[in-house]
């Protein structure tokens, strides 16, 4: 495919980190004068692909062509010289410098070896004027809004590179007006013939600004499509489901009746937090698995944070066994019998240099209070029990947990909470980044736990996983709980329909 319009072409790009495959033979093409959206859940490989294209990571396999010539940018500076500029979501510019200093860092105009500040000021003014921005370029960048900073970053990237512009979640912290301002800048750049790659998780924004979309899932390419010919439901299914017909529900329906009869012992009424999740009602019965579905950014993790007291709710009540309780901190939630396995296992879950036994004992120790330390023999016994029952490998409680595979780390975190015998366990993306075998084991474990009467809240972007384990599924969109599916309604199809329906009303 050597279209004369093709600006950037990546062929069968592969990348693995410590044996974990992040990108598996992904193809990607960007045309001149095109805005190309790159979509996928967390861990789908979007960032890895972008970082390979912009020289942050080196690729293991594959080739990149820019304007028909093979390139291998070794670092950001080289990618910039080649013509590929990037604007990152948060860490893009330096807030302690002025606007002009940011625009010209590393390429300041000089006279007699010294920086020519008047000239830098003039050129900055002229540069920003092209984006319709008339601001004091000698003011600190930190004195401007995120939207202005974003445009300054784009102006710098385009001025530096001029062929390909990569935007990583540019709209994440902008309001509607600012987003429109940004989009008009992007459309103008498209007319100038730039190729623009935009990563975002707002579907309506994808439709508003992009020409084509490439969807990644679990490090693989799902497909590249023209947005004008792609119904939203199909896009959602590209992101979340594999193929609709494959989805089967292997759930025993006999326990539905049991669950309906049982009284909900944990109830959340009108529970919410401004700017995080709109107030919702949630009843959880003993032995029930409640699934939480939604696209990235829909409020999935925020819901978990509320339930576990990491974020404090500013409305509604939490009721356990007919008694009102306040979940003001994770400590309070643990005292109430809750447990939480976070999404970011590496940063929020494990303490890498601690041994497996220490990691497992953390929650139970926290519950006991630090004044009564658990003896190392006790710790070892607990750890050995769980290593056996959950089949954690290698079966060495003293090994630092960072040397375990993702699946075994996840099991150790599960063990940490199981040791506290919780009544409610919240699992955020329990199977992310772990191999197929461990994946199945963890799902089996979820079923076994709820058979023992434990309640679970499972958050997942894998719809098959949710429909396989959950008795009920709450669907989230745009930080609101928009639908609740129970019993036979719990199918991937229904979940996607619910998400698509809400996205349509939003756009209208």
């Amino acid at each position, binding site marked *: 495919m050597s279209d004369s319009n093709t600006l950037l072409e990546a062929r069968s790009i592969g990348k693995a980190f410590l044996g974990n495959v992040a990108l598996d033979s992904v193809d990607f093409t960007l045309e001149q004068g095109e805005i190309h959206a790159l979509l996928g859940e967390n861990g789908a490989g979007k960032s890895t692909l972008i970082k390979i294209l912009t020289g942050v990571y080196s690729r293991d396999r594959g080739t990149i062509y820019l304007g028909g010539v093979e390139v291998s940018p070794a670092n950001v500076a080289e990618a910039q010289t080649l013509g590929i500029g990037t604007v990152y979501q948060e860490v893009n510019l330096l*807030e302690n410098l002025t606007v002009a200093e940011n625009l010209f*860092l590393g390429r300041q105009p*000089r006279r007699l070896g010294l920086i020519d500040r008047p000239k830098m000021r003039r050129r900055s003014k002229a540069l920003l004027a092209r984006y319709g921005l008339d601001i004091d370029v000698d003011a600190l960048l930190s004195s401007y809004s995120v939207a202005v900073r974003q445009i300054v970053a784009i102006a710098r990237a385009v001025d530096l590179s001029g062929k390909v512009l990569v935007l990583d979640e540019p709209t994440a912290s902008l309001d509607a007006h600012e987003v429109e301002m940004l989009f008009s800048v992007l459309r103008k750049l498209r007319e100038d013939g730039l190729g623009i790659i935009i990563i975002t998780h707002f579907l309506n924004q994808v439709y508003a600004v992009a020409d084509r979309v490439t969807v990644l899932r679990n490090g693989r390419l799902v497909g590249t499509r023209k947005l004008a010919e792609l119904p939203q439901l199909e896009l959602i299914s590209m992101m979340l489901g594999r193929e609709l017909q494959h989805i089967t529900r292997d759930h025993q329906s006999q326990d539905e009746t049991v669950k309906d009869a049982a009284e909900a012992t944990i109830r959340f009424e009108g529970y919410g937090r401004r700017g995080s999740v709109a107030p919702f009602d949630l009843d959880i019965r003993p032995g029930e698995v409640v699934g939480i579905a939604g696209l990235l950014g829909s409020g999935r993790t925020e819901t978990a944070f509320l339930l576990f007291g990491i974020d404090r709710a500013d409305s509604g009540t939490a009721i356990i066994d007919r008694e009102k309780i306040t979940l003001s901190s994770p400590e309070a939630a643990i005292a109430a019998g809750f447990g939480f396995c976070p999404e970011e296992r590496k940063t929020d879950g494990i303490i890498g240099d601690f041994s497996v036994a220490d990691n497992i004992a953390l929650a139970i120790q926290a519950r006991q209070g630090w004044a009564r330390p658990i003896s190392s023999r006790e710790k070892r016994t607990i750890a050995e029990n769980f290593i056996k029952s959950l089949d954690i490998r290698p079966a060495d409680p003293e090994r630092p947990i960072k040397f375990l595979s993702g699946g075994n780390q996840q099991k150790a975190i599960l063990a940490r909470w199981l040791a506290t015998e919780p009544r409610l366990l919240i699992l955020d993306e329990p199977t992310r980044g772990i191999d197929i075998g461990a994946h199945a084991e963890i799902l089996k474990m979820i079923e076994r736990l709820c058979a023992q009467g434990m309640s679970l809240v499972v958050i997942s972007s894998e719809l098959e996983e949710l429909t396989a384990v959950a008795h009920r599924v709450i669907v989230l969109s745009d930080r609101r709980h928009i639908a609740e599916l129970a019993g036979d309604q719990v199918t991937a199809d229904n979940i996607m329909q619910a998400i698509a329906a809400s996205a349509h009303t939003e756009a209208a």
Partner: protein
Amino acid sequence: MIHTRNLPFVATLGIFVIAYALCVLQFPNMLSTRVIGNLLTDNAFLGIAAVGMTFVILSGGIDLSIGSVIAFTSVFVAVMVGTLGVHPLTAFVAVLVISTLFGSLMGAMIRYLGIPPFVVTLAGMFLARGAAYLISTESVPISHPFIDTIQGFYYRFPGGGRLTALAMLMLLVFIIGTLIAGRTRFGANVYAIGGNQQSAELMGVSVGSTTVGIYALSGFLSGLAGIAYTLYTSSGYSLATVGVELDAIAAVVIGGTLLTGGVGLVAGTFVGILIQGLIQTYIVFDGTLSSWWTKIVIGFLLFVFIVLQRAIIWYSNRKLAEGRLKGV
């Protein structure tokens, strides 16, 4: 309009002017070129070292080796000139090369081995001090016609004050330092790294060579400060200038440079040095106060400035939040 980031500098300048005015009210004699000339000469070596420290702190680092490098330099020069009879200029050049290389080596370890600056320069501090002892544990006097010439060179102010060669050297270092920080790409990179190293790297700043350059500059200026100290005391002594790095850090912080890096001015450090000198002069004039009062006042001022910096960060964060509402 005063930038928020220059507020600490303005505050320092204000404090200095007010403090000086109060001193003059009590001791009118303090308002003389003689006092000013002495103040500059007495603090010349500290000022030179503090310029290097300013760059290090602006980049978000720290250099604890300064005092030891000064001691090493003074002993090295004294032994070379006084004992071995080498021409002072040759000794100066040699010692500047050594101290610059020493600084670059520390910078390279910080950058390429990923060791925190505190640890690397702490090791450097012991190393340089040990090397000084190795050369001589005695105080080595130094006398050479060339050195006498330098020591005898001065510009006479009206009113009898003397601007000595040492004071001139310090002023020159401050002027060049200001230019490097404010008007060169290297200087801009130092601020960028201090602001956010990761962002700076993503924006194409060569963090490696800049980091090595920063510590090389600090090493060079420590060497130069050592030479100034040798000329000031006419001797080299390996036990001298213990803790001078801390005085330099104090001058930098009092001068309004954020310890977290990215914000500050070389000129601020100059005012920081002047404030320290002013306190010492006041104590001399008073005659009854113990010289430890210098440390107490410096300690107090440091507290005040750290709190002030916190307040400014808090204030600018709040403005940041408001800035979002401001829009375009």
